[in-house]
């Protein structure tokens, strides 16, 4: 098990390294001049552009830039010298000229927002999805099952931005159940109540579509597991349906869900662009979207790398979790 873990972590690091190179290469080879972009859209002053090029290190060949970039991750990086010097401490992902801040600082500020959004939404959709899925499977063909099917249809058909806007229009503006989010995200540790109040609708918005998908998935998984031979064995032992469902069915049915939830969560941590935009949350999604619009390459590279790292890490966690759930995987590894 330990050897497996070491091997997996080493592979993950290698993948991350390859991804970082690919991402850096893609953006370096784009037909934009990053130095020209730093001086504003209508800037035609070659002197400033050249000065910025040297200042930001775009004057050296691409592969050297990549090495400097990698070095910045470990030891930090300084731009310019003397009084105008800007220092981005390790792990430095670069410096955004648009925002006038180190990319790492921007990401560190945005990540808690996205994480709060993702974790809350995932808990919500897992609870709703698993509960409805199990109920629908248990009462297959009856009204509870039909109701869940309707929920699934609505949930999968409505796009996130529409769900979000509808919730805003009705829950906040028309019915005034929740006060209008003042616009500023409040960290959890500062004011938990306000934090939850601001995030509640985004959670519901994000969770709605996923909960519908998970309901369908769990329903099918439970129905399939209930037809397994080992469930018949459990019945033949004299176990009650409740124990059979809880102990024998759920564990087998929900194992594949770990994979799905892990990867969905990883994707969400990279930023929920639409939801963050609709609810004006300063998360990674909004940061990335802004960066794309502004051609802010350092932020795009940083955010992409972070997303890749999250996906790779979640993959590792999911595999370990799977081994924990399914003993057959444990031995094979």
């Amino acid at each position, binding site marked *: 098990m330990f050897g497996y873990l070491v091997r997996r972590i080493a592979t993950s690091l290698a993948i991350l390294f390859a991804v970082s190179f690919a991402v850096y290469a893609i953006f370096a080879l784009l037909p934009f001049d990053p130095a020209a972009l730093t001086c504003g859209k209508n800037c035609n002053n070659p002197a400033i552009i050249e000065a910025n090029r040297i200042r930001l290190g775009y004057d050296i060949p691409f592969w050297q830039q990549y090495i400097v970039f990698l070095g910045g991750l470990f030891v930090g990086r300084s731009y310019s010298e003397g009084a105008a010097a800007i220092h981005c401490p390790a792990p430095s992902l670069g410096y955004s000229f648009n925002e006038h801040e180190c990319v790492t600082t921007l990401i560190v500020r945005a990540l808690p927002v996205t994480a709060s959004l993702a974790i809350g939404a995932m808990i919500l959709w897992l609870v709703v999805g698993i509960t409805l899925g199990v109920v629908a499977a248990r009462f297959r063909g009856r009204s509870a099952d039909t109701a869940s099917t309707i929920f699934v249809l609505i949930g999968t058909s409505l796009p996130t931005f529409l769900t979000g806007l509808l919730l805003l229009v009705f829950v906040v503006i028309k019915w005034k159940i929740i006060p209008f989010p003042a616009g500023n995200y409040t960290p959890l540790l500062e004011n938990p109540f306000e934090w939850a109040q601001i995030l509640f609708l985004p959670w519901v918005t994000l969770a709605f579509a996923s909960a519908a998908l998970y309901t369908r998935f769990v329903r099918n998984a439970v129905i399939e597991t209930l037809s*397994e031979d*080992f469930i018949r064995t459990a*019945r*033949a*032992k*004299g176990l*009650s349906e409740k124990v059979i469902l809880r102990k*024998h069915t759920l564990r087998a049915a929900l194992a594949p869900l770990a994979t799905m939830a892990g990867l969905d969560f990883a994707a969400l941590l990279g930023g929920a662009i639409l939801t963050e935009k609709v609810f004006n949350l300063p998360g990674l999604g909004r940061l990335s979207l802004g960066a794309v619009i502004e051609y802010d390459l350092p932020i795009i590279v940083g955010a992409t790398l972070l997303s890749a790292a999250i996906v790779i890490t979640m993959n590792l966690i999911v595999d370990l979790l799977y081994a924990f759930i399914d003993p*057959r995987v444990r031995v094979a590894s």
Partner: protein
Amino acid sequence: MSLLEVNDLLVEFTTSDGIVKAVDGVSFKIDRGETLAIVGESGSGKTVTNLAIMGLLPSKIADISGSAKLDNGAGPIDLLTISGSELRKIRGKDVAMVFQDPMSALHPYYTIGDQIIEAHQIHNQCDEEESAKRAIELLELVGISDAQKRLNAYPHQFSGGMRQRVMIAMALVNNPKVLIADEPTTALDVTVQAQIMKLLADLQKELGMAMILITHDLGVVAGSADRINVMYAGKIVESANVFELFANPQMPYTHGLLASIPRVDRPQLQRLETISGQPPSLISLPAGCAFAPRCTRKSEVSGSACELTMPSLVEVSASHSSRCHLVGLSGLSGSVKR
């Protein structure tokens, strides 16, 4: 009263194509210590008969009538009419079951110790240690060495034959009065088959339980069954003790089954005999004998009675009955060619 008496069992499934008569008026008895084999090809209703007795058929689609009275010491209980919770007290305790495929019948996520202990705990008020002791005892009984250690092993760490031994140990953990073994050797190698059949026979003698052995292979039951019920299209078509059935089969279908067993004492010059044709659809059964369309001897019965009327189960001797119009026609018993 016998240990288990099944009377006029009828199982129908409602499907979108129509009503499937899976089991049609099956009656049999089994005494303590007796082995009853139920033989027939796929779809003859042998498994459904036993699942119905165990209450393991989904009530939504299965329509069950008749009775299955079990004498568990406190007077006969009809397994088909008692409540679900009462039936659960009997399942796994008085009547236990071993299934066909040991690969899929054990839960892949739990150790075999967990699973056997669970089976013991449901029906006994004792702590887990005591159940674990019982589990080890049973594993040793079914011939698994190093039982103490093997308790913590998962099903996938065992071979097929060993898994079936685990299944048997699990079924026997509560000293059942009746053990239903549903094709316990079908999924196993031939050599392992023989071991498992011998194990079942030995255990049955040792524990004095009754056993219902479901199989499609007459060869498997020849050595271990006391009585054999041959089933065809949901009905018992012949019932006899094992010697009578092999020596003097009445129903042409039984003949066919016997003739299709490879035998070492016969010259291997000719091909094995087969029964031509297909079993009938259980949705639209013929009016007469269900076997008539495949029967090679129906012409011996006058007035095409085989196609028109269903023969009843008639006694050939005290321990032998058969559902065939040929029974009683002169010269039948003597004309058996094997």
